[in-house]
């Protein structure tokens, strides 16, 4: 029996175990514990091989599975330590109930998705009062203290940083298109790139401007020079004939 590690999508050890078990149920021959354990361990090995972060959770479940498998291979007549036996049964029941809870929430999550998809089609008005009604309410209560605000901002800022780290592919990147428009306005007869990006607060913003610079140079609207890699990037506006080009970065 083989499996395609690269095409199997699972989230965490419980999910993996569930997938292995349910797949076996589809098959006609009951493979039983031995088959499931073998596959689970093979996955684990493959994951280590792929240099993935194998969490203790995976290992813990693997340990339980190995115990179950070992027990199943013992001849029926052998003498057993009753305490060990009970501990193993307890461990197995714990794993079983976790699997059940996991399946239950997966099922209800699918329902929530449907309800939310329906719900999203109802759009509320969020504009509030009309311009003329912008009289502040008599009493405003801020449901927080000054230290709460400090805590909230810290949370927001670290959340942003954490997100930069984890989901950098989903980053809301600064628009190169806007950088192009801005540069076209601001590039003088002669400018320094340093000055043009002096308002940028983050590296990705600088990156957007750099790409915009390359794009404008490609269009022949500006001329870019740099004596060596340490010196300043000089930008010079070329004769500004009205050229209307569409950028590759337009979305």
């Amino acid at each position, binding site marked *: 029996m083989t499996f395609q590690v690269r095409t199997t999508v699972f989230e965490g050890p419980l999910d993996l175990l569930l997938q292995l078990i349910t797949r076996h*149920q589809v098959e006609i021959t009951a493979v039983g514990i031995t088959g499931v354990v073998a596959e689970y361990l093979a996955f684990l090995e493959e994951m280590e091989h792929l240099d993935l972060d194998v969490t203790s959770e995976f290992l813990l479940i693997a340990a339980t599975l190995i115990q179950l498998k070992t027990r199943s291979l013992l001849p029926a007549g052998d003498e057993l330590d009753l305490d060990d036996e009970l501990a193993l049964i307890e461990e197995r029941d714990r794993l079983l109930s976790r699997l059940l809870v996991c399946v239950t929430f997966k099922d209800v999550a699918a329902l929530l998705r449907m309800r939310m998809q329906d719900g999203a089609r109802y759009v509320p008005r969020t504009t509030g009062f009309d311009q003329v009604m912008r009289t502040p309410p008599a009493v405003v209560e801020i449901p927080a203290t000054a230290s709460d605000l400090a805590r909230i901002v810290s949370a927001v800022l670290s959340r942003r940083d954490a997100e930069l780290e984890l989901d950098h592919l989903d980053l809301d990147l600064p628009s190169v298109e806007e950088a192009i428009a801005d540069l076209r306005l601001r590039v003088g007869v002669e400018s320094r790139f340093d000055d043009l990006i002096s308002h940028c607060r983050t590296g990705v913003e600088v990156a957007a401007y750099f790409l915009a610079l390359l794009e404008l140079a490609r269009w022949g609207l500006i001329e870019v020079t740099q004596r060596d890699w340490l010196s300043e990037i000089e930008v010079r506006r070329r004769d500004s004939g009205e050229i209307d080009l569409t950028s590759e970065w337009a979305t």
Partner: protein
Amino acid sequence: MNRLGGLEAVLFVSEGPVPTGELAEVLELSTETVEELLTELGAQLVEREAGVVLRQVAGGWRLFSHPDAYAYLERFSSSATSRRMSSAALETLAVVAYRQPVSRTQISEIRGVDSDSAVRTLERLGLIEERGRLGLPGNPAVYGTTGLFLERLGLNGLDELPPLADHVPPAAFVASLEESLRPGPE
């Protein structure tokens, strides 16, 4: 301005569901009268096939655009329309909805996978919020769902959530799970 118009204006400017009691106070009417007016307004909107509907959600009343107009709104504004949520986020949302107040560790335990990033996403989307801290080492935060969550699901309260028992897998599935993990000799 007649009373029905007054009700409509208040619901129009409101930025969240308005409870019946509050409507009564603002319009200086009894709650019974407000309830009658709400029924009338809702019926009128349905009758004239308006682009707007009245719904009772999250403990109050709010006007929404008609779901059938969603296609127009999608073309009109990207901010009015929402993105698809990952299944990790949805599963986490389900756990919070049924187990609130619940800590991140408890959520991760139930899902069998680290759920911190999903919790952050849901918090940012305003669907869950911190509900206090546990008296455990590190004072972990516990989370609950928000009014926006109810609103998005079209529920009036948490008691309208479908019972979890309906989603417990059938006996046959449980039996086969058990079979797969039976330690006895084969």
